[in-house]
C-alpha cells in the first residue's frame, strides 16, 4: 500500500477557492463575441454539427474565429478555429483554404517555420492568393529576411491590393536603409487611395507612425497614431505600438488613460505598469505581482511565446538584467523586429555583456536600419565593449 502525504504547498497562482456570496454575483464576463448566442457563429456551428466534415462551413467558421482571435488578441479563438479544422488538420494534402488558415494559426503560435512551409505549399498551388503572399511577407519581415520579404510583397501589386503592396514594401524599405523614401512613398500612396478597408488604413497609418517615430519625426508619428486610433477598431498591435511611443515620449498619463480598461490583455497591462513606474504610482507592486503570475501561468503550459515582453518586464520592472538578457536572447532567435533588437541591446547593456547583442549590431550594419533609438543603444554598447577591451 502506498501512503503518501501532500506537504508541497499549492503554487501561488492558485488562490483559495471560494463559494460566491450570492446567486446574482457575476463571476465572469465573456467577450461579447465569444458568446455562443452570437447568431452568426451559432448558426454556423449548428450547420457544421448537422453536416460534420463539410469543408466550406468549417472554413467559414474557422475564419470567423481567427478574425475574432485577432480582434480580441485572444488565443482561445485560434484554438477554436483549429478545433473546427480538426478533420483536415493532419491530412497529407489539405486544400489551399485549409493551408492558409493553418498557416495563420501556426503563425499565432509563433511556429513560424511550419507556417512558412504551409504558405510556400499554398503559393505553389495558387500563386494568386494575396493573403498568403502578405502573411508570408510579414513572417519573413519578423525573421529579418528582408530580401525574401520584399519579394513576397511584389505580387500584391498585381492582385488588386495596391495599398497593401505599398504598405508591405514601405515597411520593409524603412528597415533596410530607405526610411525617408519609404515614408514619403507610403504617405503618397495612402493619400491617393480613396477606397480601402478600415483595417488596411489602420495598418498603413501604423506603419507610417512607426517609421516616423524611428526617424525622430515625433509629431508626425503622433498624428498618424491618433488618426489610426480614431477608427475605434480594437487593434492590439496599434495600442501596444502607441503606448510604447508615449512611454518613450514620457507621457505616461495618456498610456494609462488609453489602456486602463483593457488590462485583461497582458501586453497592455505591461505598458500600464511601465507607465505607472514613470509616475511613481503606489499601485505598481500590485500590477507587477499580477504580471508575474501571468507570465508564470503561461510558462506552466510549457509555452514561451512572449519572451520579448517578459524580457522587458524582467529588465525594467524586476531589475534583473541577467535573466532579462537570457529571455531577450531567446526571443531574438525567433523574432527580429526593431522592438526585439531594442530589448536585446538594453538587456545586454544593463548586464554589461556587450557580446550578447553582437548579432543586433551585425543586423544594423548589414541592413542600414534607421532608428535613432537603436543607433544610440548600439553606440552605448560599442562604448562598453571598447571600454572592456581597454581594461
Amino acid at each position: 500500500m502506498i501512503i503518501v502525504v501532500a506537504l508541497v504547498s499549492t503554487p501561488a497562482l492558485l488562490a483559495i477557492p471560494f463559494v460566491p456570496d450570492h446567486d446574482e454575483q457575476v463571476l465572469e464576463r465573456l467577450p461579447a463575441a465569444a458568446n455562443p448566442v452570437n447568431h452568426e457563429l451559432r448558426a454556423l456551428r449548428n450547420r457544421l454539427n448537422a453536416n460534420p466534415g463539410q469543408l466550406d462551413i468549417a472554413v467559414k467558421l474557422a475564419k470567423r474565429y481567427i478574425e475574432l482571435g485577432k480582434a480580441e488578441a485572444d488565443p482561445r479563438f485560434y484554438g477554436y478555429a483549429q478545433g473546427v479544422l480538426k478533420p483536415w488538420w493532419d491530412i497529407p494534402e489539405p486544400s489551399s483554404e485549409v493551408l492558409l488558415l493553418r498557416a495563420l494559426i501556426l503563425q499565432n503560435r509563433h511556429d513560424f517555420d511550419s507556417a512558412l512551409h504551409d504558405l510556400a505549399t499554398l503559393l505553389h498551388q495558387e500563386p494568386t492568393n494575396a493573403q498568403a503572399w502578405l502573411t508570408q511577407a510579414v513572417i519573413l519581415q519578423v525573421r529579418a529576411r528582408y530580401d525574401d520579404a520584399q519579394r513576397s510583397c511584389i505580387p500584391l501589386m498585381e492582385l488588386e491590393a495596391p495599398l497593401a503592396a505599398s504598405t508591405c514594401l514601405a515597411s520593409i524599405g524603412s528597415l533596410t536603409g530607405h526610411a525617408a523614401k519609404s515614408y514619403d512613398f507610403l504617405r503618397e500612396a495612402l493619400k491617393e487611395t480613396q477606397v480601402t478597408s478600415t483595417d488596411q488604413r489602420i495598418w498603413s497609418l501604423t506603419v507610417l507612425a512607426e517609421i516616423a517615430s524611428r526617424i525622430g519625426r515625433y509629431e508626425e508619428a503622433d498624428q498618424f497614431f491618433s488618426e489610426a486610433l480614431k477608427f475605434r477598431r480594437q487593434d492590439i498591435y496599434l495600442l501596444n505600438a502607441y503606448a510604447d511611443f508615449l512611454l518613450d515620449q514620457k507621457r505616461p498619463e495618456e498610456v494609462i488613460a488609453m489602456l486602463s480598461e483593457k488590462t485583461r490583455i497582458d501586453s497592455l497591462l505591461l505598458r500600464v505598469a511601465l507607465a505607472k513606474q514613470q509616475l511613481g504610482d503606489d499601485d505598481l507592486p500590485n500590477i507587477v505581482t499580477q504580471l508575474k503570475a501571468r507570465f508564470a501561468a503561461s510558462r506552466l503550459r510549457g509555452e514561451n511565446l512572449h519572451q520579448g515582453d517578459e524580457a522587458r518586464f524582467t529588465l525594467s520592472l524586476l531589475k534583473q538584467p541577467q535573466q532579462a538578457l537570457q529571455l531577450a536572447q531567446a526571443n531574438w532567435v525567433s523574432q527580429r523586429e526593431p522592438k526585439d533588437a531594442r530589448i536585446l541591446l538594453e538587456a545586454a547593456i544593463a548586464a554589461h555583456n556587450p557580446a550578447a547583442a553582437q548579432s543586433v549590431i551585425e543586423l544594423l550594419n548589414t541592413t542600414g536600419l534607421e532608428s535613432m533609438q537603436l543607433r544610440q543603444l548600439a553606440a552605448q554598447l560599442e562604448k562598453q565593449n571598447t571600454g572592456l577591451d581597454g581594461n
Partner: protein
Amino acid sequence: MLLRALLGFILYGCCLAVFAHKASDSYLTLKVSAGKVSGQWDIALRDLDFAISLDTNGDNAITWKELHNKHEAITSYAFTHLHISSGESPCQIKPTQYLVDNHTDGAYSVLLFDVDCPRLSTEIGINYMLFFDLDPQHRGLLRVEYGGATHTAVLSPTQNNQKIVLAQVKSGTVFLQYLHEGIWHIWTGYDHILFLLSLLLPAVLYRQAARWKPAIRFRPVLIEVIKIVTAFTIAHSITLSLATLGVISLPSRWVESAIAASVILAALNNLYPLINRNIWLVAFGFGLIHGLGFANVLKDLGLPQNMLLLTLLAFNLGVELGQLAIVTGFLPFAFWLRKTQCYRKVVFTLGSVLIAMLAFIWLLERSLNLTLID
C-alpha cells in the same frame, strides 16, 4: 470571386500575435495520501461556456446562479472526459464540492472530488480528453502530489495519457520535512509559545511573603526552567504519540479550547498565584493537552504509514528545537532584567494580563466557533 472573399478577410500585416493572455488551460491536482486519492479540477468558465453554454440568459455575464444550475451538467461533461485508473482497473470519481476560483485569465469552476480505486497500486493512470475536440490548443496541467513529492505533466491531444509511478519517498527528505514542520508549528502556534512563556516568566523570580523577589543565582533558575521545559516536552510527546498512533482521539474543538484555557490559567497563576512551587507539574498536566493539539496538526499534514515513527520523531524533534530556541532567547534576557521594575511591572504583570486576555478571546473563538480577531 475567391480573391475578393479573401481580400475581405485579409488580416493585415502588422498583426503578428501579440502577448494577449494564455490559451485555455485546466488545472488538475490529485493528492494521494493515507491510501486515498482526492482531487481538485479547476476549469475556466469561458471554456465550460463554450462547451455546454453556462450563460443561460445570454447577457455575456456568468453569475453564480447560472453556474450553480449547471453543476450537474458540468460534472457529467467533465468526468466523461477524464478517466483515472490504478492497477489496470478504473477508479470511480465522486464529486464532493463545487467552488469558484480566480486565475490569471479569469474565473474557474473548481470541482473537488474523491477517487475510489478498487485496487490502489503503485501506479496511477490518467486519460484526459477535456476540450481537445473543441480546442486542440487546450492543455490539462496535471499535478500529482504524494509523499512530499510532486509530479507534473502537461496533457495535450497528442499526450493525453499519463502513468504516474508513486515512487518510494526517501526517508531523509521526509525526516527533514517533518522536522521543519515541527519547528514551524511551534513558531507560528502562538498559543504554545504563550503558554510556555507564562510558565517561564516567574522562573527568574521567587515568592516570599506574598511578594515577588528577583532570584539571586542563575543556577537554580536554570534548573527550574529545565524542569518546566522537560516536563512539558515529556507530556506532549506522550499524547502526541498516543494520538498519532490512534490510541486516543479527542475532538479538535475540545482540544483547541482546552489549550486556550491552559494559557489563561497559566497567565492568571502569575497574577494570583495559587501554585508557585513545582510549576513543572502544571507544565506536565497541560503539556498533555498541548500534545493532542500537535497531533491534530500532524494529522492534517498527513502521515506516510510506512514511515510513521520516523515522521513522528522528526515532528516532535522539530517542536523541541523550536521550543529550545524560544527558551534560549528568553532566559538570558529575563535573568538580566529580573531586578528591574520594568521586568516585574511591564514584562511579568502586564505581559501576563495581555496573555490572559488574548487567550480568553481564543477560548471564546474556539469553543463557540467565532472569529473575533484575525
